[in-house]
C-alpha cells in the first residue's frame, strides 16, 4: 500500500508531546554564560557615548562589548553597499530595539540587571516610520552615503494609460497591506560553543547550512570547523532565515570567554528584533469591459523595508509584481515598485512573502470590478480565469510560467461547499431586516509561487543554490537513514520524508529515520522556506531512494539467482514474483551489500547509499479557491466568521494530515492579518506600540472559526512527486476572502474598501461614514 497520500501519524510527536523535544534554550552546557543586548531606546539617533562601567561592576558580569570591540569583523552579511548593518550599532541607531551593546553574565538575571546598568547617550535625529515620511520633502536619509531613503526603484516601461483609457470602465484601489510580525512561538535563541577544534552553534533557524556558510565566512574560519545545528525549532514562518546579530556575536563571545554562551530573546525583544513582514502600499487599477473581462492591469508597489535592506526584504516586491495578475488572463499588465528604508524593525519574508500582498490586491480589485459592473464576483472571476487548457501559462514576466491549475473547477467546488446561491439568497433577504447582523460573502481565487526554485532563484536571495539535497543510507540491518538538507520547524519532515522513502524503498515506515538540521550530519542543504519542502526535498528523497532500490534489487537478484525484473519488494523483503517463498529480506540484502564476496562483481561494498541534489526546472504554483461568510454586528462592527471554505490545489498530497495542518495554520495567520494583527509605531517617536502579545493580537482558539476543507488536484509537472508545496497557501488565500466578505457585507453603506486589520472600530466608522472615513 502506498504511504504517499495516506494519513500517516507524525513520528516527531511523541517527544514533542511529552516535553522531551530539544529546543535551543533547553540546552545548558556546563559553564554556559548568558548574553543579552542593550538595545536602542531611540528610533533614529547618533550614539554619543556608551558607559558600561556600572554594568561591569556588578558581580557575575563577565564582559560588556560594543561596536568598538567588533572592528575586526565585517558588517552583517547580505546588506547592500551603502546600507551596511554592523552587528552592533556603530555611531547611528535606526530603529527601537536595535542592539547597541552586549552584556555577558553568569546567568540571565545578572545579564538583565547589567543591561539596565548600561547608559547610552543619544542625539536624536528625525524619525520616519512610514514610506510617506521617509520620502517627504523634509525627510533625512537613514544612510547619508546612499543619499535617499528610496533604495531600489523598478519602473514600468509602459504605464498602460492608453489601454486603461480605452476600456469600458476603470476600477482602482489604494491598498495598505499592513506590517505583521511572524511571532513564531519560540523566540530567537542561539547557543555557541567555541572549542579549539571547532565551533558549534545551536540556533533556532530554518536553514542551518545557509547560516554555516555565512557564519564561517564572517568569522574567517573554514567551514569544516563550523558546525551549525537547528534542533527542534519552534516555528519560523520566514523570520528565522534572517541574519540577526546574535547569530554572529555569540561565537565571538564564546571564543573570547572560552565558555559556551547563550542568547535567548524575551518576547518583547522578539517583537522588536525579529524581522517583520508585509508592509506594502499598493495602487492598483484595472480597465474592464462591460461583461467584466479585465483588459489591463497596473500595479504600483511601495515596500517599507524597515531600517536595513534585508536580502529577502528587498525581494518581496519582486515576488508581488510577478504575481500581480493572479489567476486571470489579463492581456496587458504593468508593474513597478520602489523600496524605502524607515526607522522601524527590518522587514523580511513572512509566510507568503510578497505573494499574499499580490493575491490580496488582485482579489480586491476583481471584487471592485464586480461591484462597478453589477456582476456577481464569482461570475467576474469565471470570465477572467486562465483556462485549464492554457497551461503552462506565460505571464507578463518571463520568469513566471504557471505550471498547472484548474481555477474553474476549484471555484466550482468552493461554491458548492459554501452553498453559494443559498447564502446569496439569505443575504438578500437580510438586507431589509435590521434585526439581523449584516451578512457578507467573500471569494478568493488565489495562486502563488512556491517550490523555490529553479537554478538561480534562491541565489538571488543570497543562498548557495536552489536545489535541495537528500542522502539515503541503508544500514547493515536493512533499516534506513534519510538525511535531508531541508531543516523543518513544524512541517513534519520526519514523517513526510519517511513516507516517500518507504514507498520507494519498500522498507517499512518505522524502519526509516530522518535526520535534518545538523551540518555535521547532513551533507549540504539549503533550507525550509518558500513552500519547498515537498517539491524539492521530497523529490530529492524520492529519486535518491529509487536509485538505492535499483542497486538493492541487483544484489537481491544475485543472492536469489533470479532476474531483477522478476523481483518485487513487499514487507521489507524481495520476492520472486510467482514463486511464493523464494525471497530474501531487506536485512539480508543490506547485510550482503557490505560484503564484497556476496555482491555482484559490478557493485562495490556500501553501494546502498545515494546522495543527490535535486534541481527544479521551474517554480511550482499552488492555487485554490476560498470562501468566507461573515456576519457583522450592526451596532458594534464586530465580525464573526460563520463559514470558511478552503479548496486547495497543491498537486500531489503526501500526507493529508500534514497538508491540512499547514492550510489551517496558514489560514489562521491570514485571518489574523485580516482581522486582528498589525505592527504599529508611534509615528513621531518611532516607539513600537505592539511589542508584546497583549498589544499584538495573535488569535487564540476562541477567535478563529472552524474550516471546511476541499481539494482539487493538478499535478506539478516539474518535479518527480508532482507536489506544489502548501506551507504558505493559507496565508495567501485567506486575507482577501475575509476582507471581500466584510466589504460585501458593508456594500449597502457604500463602502468600497476597508484596510486590514478590519477592527470593529474601523468597520463601525465605515458604517457611519459610508466608507469616506
Amino acid at each position: 500500500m502506498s504511504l504517499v497520500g495516506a494519513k500517516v501519524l507524525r513520528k516527531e510527536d511523541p517527544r514533542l508531546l511529552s516535553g522531551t523535544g530539544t529546543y535551543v534554550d533547553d540546552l545548558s552546557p556546563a559553564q554556559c554564560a548568558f548574553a543579552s543586548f542593550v538595545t536602542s531606546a531611540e528610533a533614529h539617533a547618533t550614539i554619543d557615548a556608551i558607559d558600561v562601567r556600572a554594568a561591569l561592576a556588578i558581580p557575575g558580569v563577565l564582559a560588556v562589548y560594543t561596536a568598538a570591540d567588533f572592528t575586526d569583523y565585517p558588517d552583517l552579511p547580505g546588506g547592500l553597499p551603502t546600507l551596511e548593518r554592523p552587528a552592533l550599532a556603530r555611531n547611528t541607531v535606526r530603529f527601537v530595539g536595535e542592539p547597541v551593546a552586549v552584556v555577558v553574565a553568569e546567568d540571565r538575571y545578572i545579564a538583565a540587571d547589567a543591561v539596565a546598568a548600561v547608559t547610552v547617550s543619544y542625539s536624536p535625529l528625525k524619525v520616519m516610520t512610514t514610506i510617506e515620511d521617509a520620502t517627504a520633502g523634509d525627510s533625512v536619509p537613514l544612510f547619508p552615503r546612499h543619499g535617499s531613503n528610496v533604495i531600489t526603484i523598478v519602473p514600468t516601461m509602459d504605464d498602460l494609460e492608453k489601454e486603461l483609457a480605452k476600456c469600458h470602465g476603470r476600477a482602482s484601489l489604494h491598498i495598505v497591506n499592513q506590517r505583521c510580525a511572524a511571532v513564531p512561538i519560540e523566540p530567537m535563541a542561539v547557543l555557541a560553543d567555541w572549542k579549539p577544534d571547532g565551533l558549534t552553534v545551536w540556533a533556532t533557524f530554518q536553514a542551518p547550512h545557509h547560516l554555516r556558510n555565512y557564519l564561517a565566512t564572517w568569522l574567517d574560519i573554514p567551514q569544516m570547523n563550523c558546525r551549525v545545528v537547528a534542533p527542534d525549532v519552534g516555528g519560523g514562518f520566514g523570520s528565522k532565515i534572517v541574519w540577526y546579530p546574535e547569530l554572529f556575536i555569540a561565537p565571538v563571545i564564546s571564543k573570547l570567554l572560552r565558555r559556551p554562551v547563550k542568547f535567548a530573546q524575551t518576547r518583547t525583544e522578539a517583537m522588536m528584533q525579529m524581522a517583520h513582514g508585509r508592509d506594502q502600499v499598493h495602487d492598483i487599477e484595472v480597465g474592464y469591459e462591460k461583461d467584466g473581462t479585465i483588459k489591463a492591469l497596473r500595479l504600483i508597489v511601495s515596500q517599507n523595508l524597515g531600517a536595513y535592506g534585508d536580502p529577502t526584504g528587498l525581494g518581496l516586491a519582486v515576488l508581488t509584481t510577478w504575481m500581480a495578475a493572479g489567476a486571470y488572463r489579463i492581456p496587458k499588465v504593468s508593474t513597478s515598485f520602489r523600496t524605502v528604508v524607515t526607522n522601524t524593525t527590518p522587514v523580511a519574508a513572512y509566510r507568503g512573502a510578497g505573494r499574499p500582498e499580490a493575491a490580496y490586491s488582485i482579489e480586491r480589485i476583481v471584487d471592485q470590478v464586480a461591484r462597478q459592473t453589477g456582476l456577481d464576483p464569482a461570475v467576474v472571476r469565471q470570465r477572467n480565469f486562465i483556462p485549464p487548457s492554457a497551461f503552462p501559462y506565460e505571464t507578463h514576466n518571463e520568469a513566471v510560467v504557471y505550471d498547472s491549475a484548474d481555477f474553474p473547477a476549484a471555484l466550482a467546488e468552493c461554491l458548492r461547499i459554501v452553498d453559494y446561491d443559498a447564502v446569496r439568497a439569505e443575504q438578500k433577504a437580510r438586507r431589509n431586516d435590521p434585526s439581523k447582523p449584516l451578512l457578507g460573502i467573500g471569494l478568493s481565487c488565489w495562486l502563488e509561487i512556491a517550490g523555490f526554485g529553479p537554478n538561480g532563484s534562491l541565489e538571488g536571495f543570497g543562498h548557495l543554490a536552489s536545489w535541495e539535497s537528500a542522502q539515503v543510507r541503508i544500514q547493515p540491518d536493512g533499516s534506513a537513514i534519510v538525511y535531508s538538507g531541508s531543516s523543518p520547524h513544524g512541517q513534519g519532515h520526519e514523517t513526510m520524508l519517511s513516507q516517500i522513502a518507504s514507498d520507494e524503498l519498500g522498507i517499512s515506515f518505522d524502519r526509516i529515520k530522518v535526520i535534518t538540521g545538523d551540518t555535521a550530519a547532513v551533507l549540504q542543504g539549503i533550507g525550509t522556506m518558500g513552500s519547498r519542502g515537498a517539491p524539492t526535498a521530497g523529490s530529492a528523497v524520492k529519486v535518491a531512494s529509487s536509485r538505492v532500490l535499483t542497486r538493492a534489487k541487483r544484489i537481491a537478484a544475485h543472492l536469489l539467482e533470479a532476474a531483477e525484473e522478476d523481483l518485487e519488494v513487499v514487507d521489507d523483503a524481495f520476492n520472486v514474483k510467482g514463486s511464493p517463498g523464494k525471497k530474501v529480506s531487506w536485512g539480508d540484502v543490506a547485510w550482503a551489500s557490505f560484503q564484497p564476496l556476496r555482491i555482484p562483481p559490478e557493485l562495490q561494498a556500501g553501494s546502498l547509499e545515494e546522495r543527490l541534489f535535486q534541481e527544479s526546472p521551474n517554480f511550482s504554483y499552488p492555487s485554490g479557491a476560498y470562501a468566507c461568510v461573515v456576519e457583522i454586528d450592526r451596532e458594534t462592527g464586530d465580525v464573526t466568521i460563520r463559514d470558511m471554505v478552503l479548496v486547495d490545489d497543491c498537486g500531489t498530497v503526501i500526507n493529508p494530515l500534514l497538508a491540512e495542518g499547514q492550510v489551517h495554520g496558514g489560514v489562521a495567520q491570514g485571518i489574523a492579518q485580516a482581522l486582528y494583527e498589525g505592527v504599529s509605531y508611534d509615528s513621531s517617536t518611532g516607539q513600537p506600540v505592539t511589542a508584546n502579545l497583549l498589544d499584538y493580537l495573535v488569535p487564540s482558539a476562541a477567535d478563529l472559526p472552524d474550516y471546511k476543507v476541499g481539494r482539487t488536484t493538478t499535478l506539478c509537472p516539474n518535479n518527480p512527486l508532482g507536489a506544489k508545496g502548501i506551507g504558505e497557501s493559507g496565508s495567501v488565500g485567506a486575507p482577501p476572502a475575509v476582507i471581500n466578505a466584510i466589504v460585501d457585507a458593508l456594500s449597502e453603506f457604500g463602502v468600497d474598501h476597508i484596510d486590514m486589520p478590519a477592527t470593529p472600530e474601523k468597520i463601525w466608522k465605515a458604517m457611519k461614514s459610508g466608507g469616506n472615513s
Partner: protein
Amino acid sequence: MTAIGSEIYSLNVNGRELPVRDSWIGESLLFVLRERLGLPGAKGACEQGECGSCTVIIDDKAVCSCLVLAASAQGAAIRTVEGLGPDGRLSDVQQSFLDAGGVQCGFCTPGFIVAVHHLLDGNPDPSDLEIKEALSGNICRCTGYGRILDAVKQVAVSRRSGSRGDSKEGAR
C-alpha cells in the same frame, strides 16, 4: 539586584519532593523547573502570562509558571507535562493530540497538554465554547487550533465512554 544564592527549599513536582539548589529567591517557577530541576517541558515564550506555553498545574489550578515565584509553590502539588503519561508512555490527551494532528512545531504543545488535562479533569463534558475558553490563554502559532480542538473533543468522548486509557493514574 540578583544574587546567586544557595537557598535550599524543596518543591513537590509530579509526586516527588525535589530539592531546589542554586536558585535565588525571586526566580520564577518556570525557570526553576527548567533550569534547576531538569524539567524543560514547560516552555517560556513570553514570560508575561500571555502565551500559556509555560502552563503547569498547582494544586488543581492551571497556572502560567512564568508568573509564579517558585519559592511560593512550596508545599503545593505541582504537575508538569513530564508527569502526565504513566511510565514514560503518552497520556490519553497526548495520544489524542497525536491522532488528531494537533502538533506542528511542538513548542506550545506541553502547555496545551497540561491545560487540557486540567480542563477535562474538572469538566469531563465540556462544550465547544468551554473548550475554547479554557484554551484561550494558550497561543499556538502553527496549527490554527482546529486539530487541537478535535483532539480535546476526541479524548473527552473516549473518557466518557469509559475507554479512557491510562491517564487518570498518570494524571494524579
